[in-house]
């Protein structure tokens, strides 16, 4: 009956297996031969007789099972291939239904590299492939570098499939689109471009794909490399793509019409296009009351000014314009710096470098020793340096404040950039005082305005000014006011939500007093993730 049904209603097209994640034979083909020894010979020579390639001879030498010991799971091999043959109705491996059949040895090679096992028979040019991949994954724990107090506590891991799974679980919609691109001639790293069809700008998606497919290199081992290959401007300290390891953050950005780029073997996801202010948004902001969220956001943005400008400002005052210090403070300030041997600019440079040393030492060392370094560096050196009269205690306060302010930024890349920018400003302030700082800041602002990330101005929505989008920039307005997606992602579908607090409207009209307010709140919460 089934046959008749197919005959009449089917379209008679043979469907191809779709496995784009593992399709990297670069268009090369090598038809398999009917001779087993010839096939095995070809495989072995192509793998340069690598020792972990296991060839198990079966059927008294008439068939062979080939797989990588290091990639395949022994148990899977038994369970999927030998088990059914021994127990079940099938008496030959070639009859197993779970197998995929191919006649192309190049495809076999790429599949073997993917952890599959190949079954070859003498007298037949059919090669049967079984998925026996083993993978060792850690659990999707919360990333150490992007912790939140409230909200989702999972994070990406090194396996791209699990990462995409985490996203798909959050967006159960057909428009979520994943495109695979293989890059790295040797490493064949699987890179996924993920976007929401119908929300993301198609030309943006095209541009991202174009840039990624243009990468011609032997090896891609970190998202930093991909970022440098595809970003607009490399001669700048500012990151132009957001790095994140948080699925909720990626999902929120996808829903704003941005594109996420993931790579096999790394938990870090790149998000393009990114703007400067995105680096100051944290998932926590959306889980708080909007008053507190706004307050914290403002504090964070203010920290930008402190991190970049405070040491320079202090040096300009102490070296050039001390008349700016108010009357009550002038004697204490004078007392603290009176007997310091070095000029303030040297003091500042030395202290900033010391802080960087402590930070770097703390990161590189194992956690328990790292803490010790922090204490030794921060407390002991700081105190001793002041007592010795090398650095004034005011300078220690200034530099420590600067360091703290730079760590407030949620993104590590931007925080490093800020700390780097302190140096030229210190030098300018030490040369020309306030005028130097003004010029330094002016150059930074011009630079930021000129930067673009995938055609989007980096300083959007401040320059070019888009008044409506300031709702999620300096402040975080209540969720129900975020009716439109930000313009900077050039989204195709600008509306983000219909009135989520409709229950209140109907309450006022007095029509349905018994509606559930929780439902409306919950849906607004969903949007915020």
């Amino acid at each position, binding site marked *: 009956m089934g046959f008749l049904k197919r005959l009449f209603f089917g379209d008679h097209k043979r469907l191809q297996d779709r496995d784009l994640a593992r399709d990297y034979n670069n268009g090369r083909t090598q038809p398999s031969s009917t001779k087993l020894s010839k096939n095995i010979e070809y495989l072995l020579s192509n793998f340069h007789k690598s020792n972990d390639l296991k060839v198990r001879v079966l059927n008294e030498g008439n068939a062979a099972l080939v797989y990588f010991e290091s990639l395949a799971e022994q148990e899977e091999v038994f369970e999927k291939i030998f088990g059914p043959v021994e127990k079940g109705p099938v008496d030959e491996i070639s009859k197993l239904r779970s197998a995929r059949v191919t006649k192309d040895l190049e495809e076999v090679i790429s599949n073997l590299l993917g952890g599959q096992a190949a079954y070859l028979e003498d007298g037949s040019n059919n090669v049967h492939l079984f998925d026996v991949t083993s993978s060792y994954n850690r659990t999707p724990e919360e990333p150490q570098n992007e912790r939140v107090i409230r909200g989702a506590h999972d994070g990406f891991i090194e396996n791209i499939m699990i990462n995409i799974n985490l996203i798909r679980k959050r967006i159960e919609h057909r428009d979520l689109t994943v495109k695979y691109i293989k890059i790295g001639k040797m490493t064949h790293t699987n890179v996924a471009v993920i976007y929401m069809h119908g929300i993301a700008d198609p030309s943006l998606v095209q541009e991202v794909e174009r840039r990624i497919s243009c990468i011609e290199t032997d090896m891609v081992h970190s998202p930093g490399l991909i970022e440098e290959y595809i970003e607009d401007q490399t001669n700048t300290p500012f990151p132009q793509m957001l790095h994140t390891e948080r699925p909720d953050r990626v999902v929120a950005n996808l829903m704003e019409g941005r594109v996420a780029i993931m790579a096999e073997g790394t938990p870090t996801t790149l998000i393009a296009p990114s703007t400067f202010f995105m680096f100051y948004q944290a998932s926590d902001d959306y889980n708080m009351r909007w008053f507190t969220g706004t307050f914290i956001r403002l504090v964070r943005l203010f920290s930008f000014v402190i991190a970049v400008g405070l040491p320079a400002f202090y040096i300009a005052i102490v070296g050039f314009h001390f008349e700016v210090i108010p009357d009550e403070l002038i004697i204490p300030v004078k007392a603290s710096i009176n007997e310091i041997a070095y000029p303030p600019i040297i003091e500042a440079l030395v202290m900033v470098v010391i802080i960087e040393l402590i930070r770097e030492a703390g990161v590189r060392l194992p956690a328990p020793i790292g803490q010790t370094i922090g204490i030794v560096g921060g407390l002991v050196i700081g105190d001793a340096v002041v007592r010795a009269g090398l650095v004034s205690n005011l300078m220690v306060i200034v530099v420590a404040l600067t360091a703290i302010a730079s760590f407030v930024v949620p993104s590590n890349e931007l925080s490093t950039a800020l700390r780097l920018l302190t140096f030229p400003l210190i030098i300018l302030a030490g040369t020309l005082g306030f005028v130097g*700082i*003004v010029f330094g800041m002016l150059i930074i602002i011009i630079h930021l305005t000129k930067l673009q990330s995938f055609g989007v101005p980096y300083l959007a929505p401040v320059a070019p000014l888009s008044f409506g989008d300031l709702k999620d920039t300096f402040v975080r307005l209540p969720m129900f006011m975020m009716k439109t997606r930000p313009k900077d992602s050039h989204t195709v579908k600008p509306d983000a939500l219909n009135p989520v607090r409709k229950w209140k409207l109907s309450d006022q009209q007095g029509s349905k007093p018994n509606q559930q307010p929780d439902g409306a709140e919950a849906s607004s919460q969903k949007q915020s993730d």
Partner: protein
Amino acid sequence: MGVLSVPFELHSAARQDGWISLLIGASILPLILLAIWGTVKNFEGDSFFQLSEKLFFKWGGRVLTLGYVLYFVSVGTLIIILYGRMISLWVLPLTPLWVIASLMIAVCCYLISGGLLVMGRIYTMLSVLILILFGVIIYSAKEMNIVYLFPILENGWGRVLTGVNEALFSFLGYIVSLFIYSKVNGTHKQKLRVMLYAHSFVFLFYFIIVFVSFTYFSTEEITLVPEPILYMLKAFELPVIARLDLFFISIWVVNVATTFGTYLYMAGLGVSHLCPICTKTTASILVSVIVLALTLYVGYDMGKTKQLDQIVLHLGYVFSLSLPLIMLPLSYFRKKRVKEGG
């Protein structure tokens, strides 16, 4: 740019009636803006240089363009010199002029290298700073003394009219609209509205500054202080910081950068139009080198600065006041001819 010196100049021309001059000047100016608007509207889509070639034939247009380039270069030089003088008087008395000047010119080169779009974005962002200046000035208004504005018209209308002259030149920046009109998107009406808004904003700002400094300083005292706003802020002390003038002048430096950047951009446009082998970048670098050389030649010499000031004033009459008014009827005439010919 004129924030610091406008009150003094108005006062030296028209004494305490300077604010009347400013009012009159500001109400005359929209006429010139309308003239510019009428001219460029008649040549839809043409840049200013194409337009001038259509108006005055090819070589006439080129000479005119060259004239404008020279005008912009001299205005730019004057800006840099005044800025250098102000910085050296108030903040850095010992720093040589070449450092202050070349730093400013270099930053402005970088500023205009991004093209008009980026400049527009930066200006929008930096206009926040003007609000800060506003706040500072309004804070200082608590010591106002209206009596100092009286007697009105003590010195008659003659002085007020010389003041109008000064007032007009404080609005010189409007000539920009002639050059960038064709490069901006929008309908003619929108653009005119923007031009008028910009003008009224500048007027409001100047008016507040003039008003505050005229009422804060006594009539006699203001003749002694060339930069009344700075002098006034010098005495203010907030609980956190003292000496607001230093902050004011720092913010003012940003305004100088935007003003000078605009002139540099326009001069660069002119040069790149005149000499086809120059790209916009090389043209603006060329212009900035010329400006730097001129600046260093003039230096802090009061006499030479005065001469340059006079030159700029006279060029201003020709290029900012007369030419737009001449071009308006000419443009209607030409447009008709072109239509008939076509």
